[in-house]
């Protein structure tokens, strides 16, 4: 599956793509079509390339070379259509031939700059035969015309046209023009045919230019968000996912605009399910989204926004947030969620190794059945040893799986009414192992701090007591 499909499913992935400075739709299209990679060797060699790009960016001596490279990125024309015409053995027109000549010149420019900055990967191949064909006089300029030297009959016809006055001898002139057109077509056919032999190299070079640009855009991103190279874990089924100090770039950026910082969170997941509990507004959903984002980024050969990360490879990543109402198909949010989980379980039954992140499953139905659905889901994930994190508000379920809890809310710190924007200051977002299965009862205290009417909260409090009895 490609990047575009993941960007629809994994929150924050599109944001990262949007933050990449790419020169145009040509490169963006290439990024969107890149594939989710589950091969550790490929990823590791990709990370070597990315590390090299990062080293170059931080090398002051390479600065002017990098500037030249960035300038080159913007010079590449989208010649997809011309390349397609070439592969189909169509006859190129003069403008397309110019584009090929211009492109061949850019190939050598790319090679020179890559050598200059010491970037040995993805360098376009030199195309001397293309340059010689389209620059028969060897002037080295990029301009192009159907040169006289391509065909003697063309040059003769042109000479004849020059000595003919179109006003005085219109018939002769028209005949000569017809001849010129015929001869020019013959030249274009000849050139197109010869160029066809270089098609594969041209195509590869075109893709390489996009890839070089993407590597440097990924490196820029890594600098911007202090991303690190993840350790890829492959092998046994009992691999651990371990992330220290992860941040969510999109939320960090939003917090940054109000002078707040994102509290980095660390987490370890093993095979099988793990429950995640915590008060409202304690960032459970953010943990799930960030995990999904990091796993996906790593498998698209990005560095990841964390202090350290070791990541076992999976075949797919699923993030179930449960807010996907599909009213157009007549589905409630509950129905949409159930169907989504059902599809994912079918994938798991086939033995596909994946990372599953579910936010409060079955929260939109009655608590008795909701809790039952949650328990069944955890049972299922236990049976298939699926690495998964499931957040919930349901407590005391008697489940034996591993449990994590967001450390939580320090109510004592709040002075006066709580501003939701200030939540950040009173919340400890770190995760702790939770041995007992109860859930924190913090909903009403938080509502009170938010300034919700006191008598209303008092009334709710009475109902809590009655239920506990």
């Amino acid at each position, binding site marked *: 599956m490609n990047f575009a499909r993941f960007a629809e499913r994994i929150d924050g992935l599109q944001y990262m793509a949007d933050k990449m400075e790419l020169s145009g739709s040509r490169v963006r299209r290439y990024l969107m079509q890149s594939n989710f990679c589950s091969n550790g060797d490929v990823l590791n060699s990709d990370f070597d390339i990315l590390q090299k790009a990062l080293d170059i960016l931080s090398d002051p001596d390479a600065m002017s070379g990098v500037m030249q490279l960035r300038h080159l990125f913007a010079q590449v*024309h*989208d010649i997809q259509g011309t390349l397609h015409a070439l592969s189909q053995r169509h006859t190129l*027109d003069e*403008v397309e031939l110019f584009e090929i000549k211009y492109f061949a010149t850019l190939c050598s420019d790319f090679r020179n700059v890559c050598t200059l900055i010491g970037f040995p990967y993805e360098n376009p191949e030199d195309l001397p035969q293309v340059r010689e064909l389209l620059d028969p006089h060897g002037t080295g300029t990029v301009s192009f*015309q159907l040169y006289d030297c391509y065909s003697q009959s063309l040059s003769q016809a042109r000479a004849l046209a020059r000595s003919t006055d179109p006003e005085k001898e219109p018939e002769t002139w028209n005949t000569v*023009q017809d001849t010129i057109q015929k001869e020019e077509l013959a030249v274009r056919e000849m050139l197109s045919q010869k160029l066809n032999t270089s098609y594969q190299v041209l195509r590869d070079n075109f893709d390489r230019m996009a890839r070089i640009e993407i590597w440097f855009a990924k490196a820029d991103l890594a600098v911007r968000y202090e991303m690190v190279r993840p350790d890829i874990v492959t092998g046994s089924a009992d691999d651990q996912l371990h992330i220290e100090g992860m941040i969510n770039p999109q939320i960090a950026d939003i917090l940054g605009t109000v002078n707040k910082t994102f509290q980095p969170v660390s987490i370890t997941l093993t095979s099988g399910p793990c429950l995640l509990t915590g008060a409202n507004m304690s960032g459970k959903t953010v943990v799930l989204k960030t995990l999904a984002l990091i796993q996906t980024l790593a498998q698209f050969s990005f560095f990841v926004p964390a202090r350290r990360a070791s990541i076992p490879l999976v075949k797919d990543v699923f993030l179930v947030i449960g807010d996907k109402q599909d009213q157009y198909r007549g589905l409630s949010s509950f129905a949409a969620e159930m169907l989504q989980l059902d599809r994912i379980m079918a994938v798991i039954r086939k033995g596909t190794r994946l990372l599953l992140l579910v936010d409060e499953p079955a929260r939109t139905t009655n608590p008795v059945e909701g809790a039952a659905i949650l328990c069944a889901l955890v049972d299922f994930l236990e049976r298939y040893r699926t690495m998964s994190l499931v957040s919930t508000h349901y407590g005391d379920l008697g489940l034996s799986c591993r449990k994590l809890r967001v450390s939580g809310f320090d109510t004592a710190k709040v002075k006066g009414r709580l501003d939701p924007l200030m939540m950040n200051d009173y919340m400890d977002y770190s995760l702790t192992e939770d041995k007992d299965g109860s859930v924190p009862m913090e909903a009403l205290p938080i509502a009170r701090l938010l300034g919700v009417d006191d008598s209303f909260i008092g009334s709710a409090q009475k109902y809590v007591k009655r239920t506990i009895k």
Partner: protein
Amino acid sequence: MPFVDQIIRYGSLSVVGLGKNTGKTECLNYVMRRLSEMRKVVAVTSIGIDGEGVDQVTFTPKPSIYLEKGMYFTTLSSFYTRKQFQAEICHVENAGTVLGKMVTARVLERGKMVLAGPSDTVSLQRWVSRIPERFPVDVCLVDGAISRLSSASPVVTRSMVLATGAAYSANVRTLVERTRFVYDTVRLPQAPSGLREKLEQVTKGIRIITDKGEITDPGVRSVLLPDQVRKVLETGGNRLYVPGVVGNALLKALGERKEAGETELYVRDFSRIFAEPRVFYSFLRKGGRILQLFTTHLLAICVNPLSPEGIRLKSEELVDKMQRVVEVPVYDIKKIRS
């Protein structure tokens, strides 16, 4: 030689026809030939599609755009590949349209060409500034147009020539009056540079300029609702900037205000004014002022006494009457050749 030296000094020129068959292309051909004789390198393009052998509106033959050896020109690739003379492609724009990419080429032998260049102001502006950077060009020429159909303003060039003629009006008096109206809009004063810098980025809605010189957005999206505009002015002050088209309704509404005499209307450039002369002058007579953010130097007015319907106005009378109402030289395009 008339006005050609000035063109060289300004470095860029647009030739704007007030209507079809007013002699714009002849005027352009004259300028190109003269510059070529003076060994100046010229680059030429056209707003929209022009240069067809037959006028697409009236189906009358019209002079072709002749390109001289050594000139640069910019047109769509689909027209370029139909050329019947030798040229070399020097540059191709990365982005393309359905009609192809924009091609800039150098003429290797004299020939006729269909020119269809940038069709919006931003790309046209870029063309005028980039061409001399890329190529050894002395003068950039734009075959211009003012019409509601074209969003590209000819004011991107530093100088301009207006082409008018019998095809625009068959009656000498009317022709002179209508031409003078365009002339008067072109010569509207320029806004002070401080205001221009603040306003040039605004391309939508309207803006009020307060007495302190601050720019505020009253949230009115369209000047097609003059009542709203009037209400805004009652509270906001007397200075208004309209980046889009200024039509009859707005100018009338402004002219009917009690404070018409204190009203200042800022427009982008003369080509955005589409009001009738009657309404335009009435606003000015009441003391209202209209200022433009961008202006260009009008070098001359070329008149064409012939129209495709066979009307032939008296050349001397036309030139003479026109010359009495404008302060730039007036030439008969048919006589200027000799």
